[in-house]
């Protein structure tokens, strides 16, 4: 029986705590008697016979007819799937999306459906490399569909293949991929790693245009998203749900398939990362020392290669299919079961280690903007109720924050860093002054459509993702980061955790209370 998450009050006997530092990690000792470490629940047990569960979900969907009854020989069927931003790290093969798509294709074949398109729901993310498609969908699907042009990636900048569905009651435009819009049935294959994902968000962002996404991917929405992991208190999700209702009423029939996975993210020899430190064995300690020392000697490029090679031995904890809204409520229950940890009250400081990966750098570099996005966007938002840190408190992250960018994946990030951050780090100001220029830049558009680049506007979205955290925190400190880069982000550099706590004392006094969000492991703090 996996143990639930819990909150450890740090005392003098507490061993040092693990912090990610990009492509490495460190052990930090937090002050006794006023620090607490929030540990995620242990991984839930996975489903046996996952293919059977998937088939069962397709045959017994929620609030919809069984999938075979929706499949007709002369119909247009479109199957969409989450892109390479999920899961993190990538899951060992066969990926859940492969299992779902294969099951759907089997049923479609039985029903005599021969007009089938499979679309990667990229939104404004970079296109997937073929090897990524093969990893996610398996060789059989890729070999059957890719050469014939029936497996492809959504292009948000192809005006001929975008269809306007209509406007929500609040005037938000919904426009999605034309093939999906004109299909008799759209099946969406999802992996749900955190509560933010899935539901109407899958299709209304993954198949949307920039015009549509900008309705909710903006500073005002993100500053009123409290939090990204709690859709009922998220302005972003409320907008998306309005679009979902419009899609339900005016768009194609959508059959949503969602799977939840546990938190077994690291195989050997990195499994110690998810353990509680006082339970480390001598072997774990040896592995920590050996891996940290070896990593310190390796160039960044090699370290990245090594970490991005990791394939997570996740187990799937639930499968649900059917009407999107109903499916997603069931999904959220299952996700929260894995992630929720009850936490009593807020503290003056929140500490977090920033890992080597975020949803926007699979097989790529965690550039400075993504460090901000991961810290203030994702990890800060790992709460329900209220943030772990008090308003005006201090967020301390650990990351090298090197000024390195992947020129192919993140071309507009480079310019955003050089040009936009040189001018402002205020999301509202950059949105008004700079966003349009980047969104409409022909070169970025060309690279997004034909190469493997994130859309020109994407660094803005990554920055907006942290807008709530940026607004809430009185100060943000990065330990171990390149000072000039950290300052350009608008944060304060510190050499060590002790220095960071000293710097933080200007904001929160000499004896602040501290919460440490233990990563790896994924958790959502249910702050009472």
């Amino acid at each position: 029986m996996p143990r639930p998450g819990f909150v450890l009050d740090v005392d003098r006997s507490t061993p040092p705590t693990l912090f990610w530092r990009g492509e490495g990690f460190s052990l930090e000792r937090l002050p006794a008697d006023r620090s607490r470490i929030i540990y995620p629940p242990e991984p839930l047990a996975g489903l046996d016979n996952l293919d059977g569960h998937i088939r069962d979900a397709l045959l017994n969907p929620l609030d919809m007819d069984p999938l075979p009854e929706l499949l007709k020989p002369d119909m247009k069927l479109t199957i969409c799937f989450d892109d390479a931003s999920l899961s993190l790290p990538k899951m060992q093969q066969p990926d859940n999306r492969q299992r779902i798509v294969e099951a759907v294709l089997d049923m479609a074949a039985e029903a005599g459906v021969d007009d089938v398109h499979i679309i990667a729901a990229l939104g404004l993310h970079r296109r997937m490399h073929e090897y990524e498609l093969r990893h996610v969908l398996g060789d059989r699907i890729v070999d059957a569909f890719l050469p014939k042009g029936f497996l492809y990636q959504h292009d948000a900048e192809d005006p001929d293949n975008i269809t306007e569905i209509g406007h929500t009651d609040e005037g938000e435009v919904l426009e999605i991929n034309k093939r999906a819009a004109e299909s008799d049935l759209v099946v969406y294959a999802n992996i749900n790693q955190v509560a933010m994902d899935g539901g109407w968000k899958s299709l209304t962002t993954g198949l949307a245009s920039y015009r549509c996404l900008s309705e909710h991917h903006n500073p005002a929405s993100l500053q009123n998203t409290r939090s990204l992991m709690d859709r009922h208190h998220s302005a972003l999700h409320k907008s998306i749900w309005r679009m979902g209702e419009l899609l339900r009423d005016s768009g194609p029939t959508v059959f949503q398939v969602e799977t939840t996975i546990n938190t077994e993210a690291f195989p050997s020899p990195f499994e110690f990362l998810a353990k509680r430190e006082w339970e480390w064995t001598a072997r774990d300690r040896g592995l920590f020392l050996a891996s940290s020392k070896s990593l310190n000697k390796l160039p960044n490029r090699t370290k990245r290669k090594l970490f991005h090679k990791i394939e997570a031995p996740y187990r799937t904890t639930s499968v649900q299919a059917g009407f999107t809204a109903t499916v997603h409520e069931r999904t959220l229950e299952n996700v929260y079961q894995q992630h929720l940890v009850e936490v009593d009250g807020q503290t003056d400081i929140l500490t977090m280690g920033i890992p080597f990966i975020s949803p926007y750098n699979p097989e790529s570099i965690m550039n400075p903007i993504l460090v901000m996005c991961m810290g203030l966007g994702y990890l800060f938002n790992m709460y329900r109720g209220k943030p772990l840190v008090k308003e005006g408190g201090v967020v301390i992250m650990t990351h090298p924050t090197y000024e390195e960018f992947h020129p192919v994946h993140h071309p507009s990030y480079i310019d955003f860093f050089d040009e936009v951050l040189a001018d402002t780090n205020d999301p509202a100001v950059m949105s008004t002054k700079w966003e349009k220029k980047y969104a409409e830049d022909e070169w970025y558009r060309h690279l997004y459509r034909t190469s493997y680049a994130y859309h020109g506007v994407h660094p803005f979205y990554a920055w907006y993702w942290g807008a709530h955290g940026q607004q809430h925190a009185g100060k943000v400190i990065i330990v171990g980061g390149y000072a000039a880069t950290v300052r350009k982000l608008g944060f304060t550099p510190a050499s060590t955790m002790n220095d960071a706590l000293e710097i933080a004392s200007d904001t929160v006094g000499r004896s602040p209370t501290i919460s440490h969000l233990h990563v790896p492991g994924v958790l959502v703090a249910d702050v009472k």
Partner: protein
Amino acid sequence: MKALQIRRNIARFGAARVVGAVSPSGATKVGPLEYRTIEDPERPGDGWHRVRTRLAGICGSDLSLIGGRASTYFESWVSFPFVPGHEVVGELVDGDEAGTRVVLEPVLGHAARDFPLPFDGARPADGDDYAHLAVTSQDGVEPAIQTGFCCSTGGGWAPWFWAHESQLHRLNLPINDLPDERAVLIEPFAGGIHAALLAAPIVEGRANPVVAVLGAGTMGLAAIAGLRRYIPDIRIVVGARYPHQRELALAFGADVVVTATELDRAVRREVGCHMLGGGESGALSSGADVTIDAVGSSRSIADSLRITRPRGRVVLLGMPAHVELDLTGLWHREIDLKGAYTYGTETLSDGTVTDTFHLAIDTVTAVEAERLLSATYSLDEHLDAIDHAATAGRRGAIKIAFDLRESN
């Protein structure tokens, strides 16, 4: 008198070249520059004035020569032994005008060599035949492109030298209004402004023209100031290596200032074109209408060619010497590669005909150019002075000069 002098000594030039690759000050010690007692140069003839040096700047071309890196091209255009120093503010010594401050326009032009002027009112560097620079004049002035490379006239790195009437700009303003520290920058500013004016025909009539400047030492900054003052309605994008250079570039009128390695992206952002090779090569599909290369290295010229639009212009302001270049881009983009050596008669966009030194005198005052003068040294401190000038960028400096006011 005691002066800094360069003599023809192949061994010393070679030693300077070898040692200079490691240490600029080392190159000065073993190189051709010597602080020694020299014979006073004889007055070349009528129309020549003795000028007492007040301040004399150290230029990039001086450093190339001292470091043994100058091109052999100059073999026929210099006469040894010579006293360097062509960025000079001094004062007339003899006659009724004794004490009058002057700035030197150093080119030893037609008038200084008794050659007919190429046209009425021509300045020393005008004309399309440099024969007069390569021959000994009737007055016995030996070949040299300019004062500071001529054995007959002396140069600014000495207590005094000879200057022809055609080379002198009298400073009629009181010293408080045009201090020496500002005046010593008039010559390099004239060079920079001349390069800036070479952008005019290319940007004329273009919508949203962009001029890029690579390098923001003295010459780059002078070019930026010239662009801002004399080429209307352009966007100036500057790539500069050091923070203090970037601050000055902004102060002198640049619109966008970035580190040198970011210049390609900054130009792309201004122009809105593509960057080829998925963003990894840095070559642009279009680019700046004009790029002024104020560095003059293989790398900077190659970079300039990559960021200049087809049928645009690259102006070589920094003296290039030996470079190794792939010129395919120049050929393919039909780029005009334009040298910018000195100054002369200029026609502004409003049709005004003037000369570059007058523009430079106005400009140094407008931008308070004395802020570029970072340090001065006496002649006997020349090792430190040359070292400082050679490492100016990383030491937070711009222009280094010799100050002979006390010793004179």
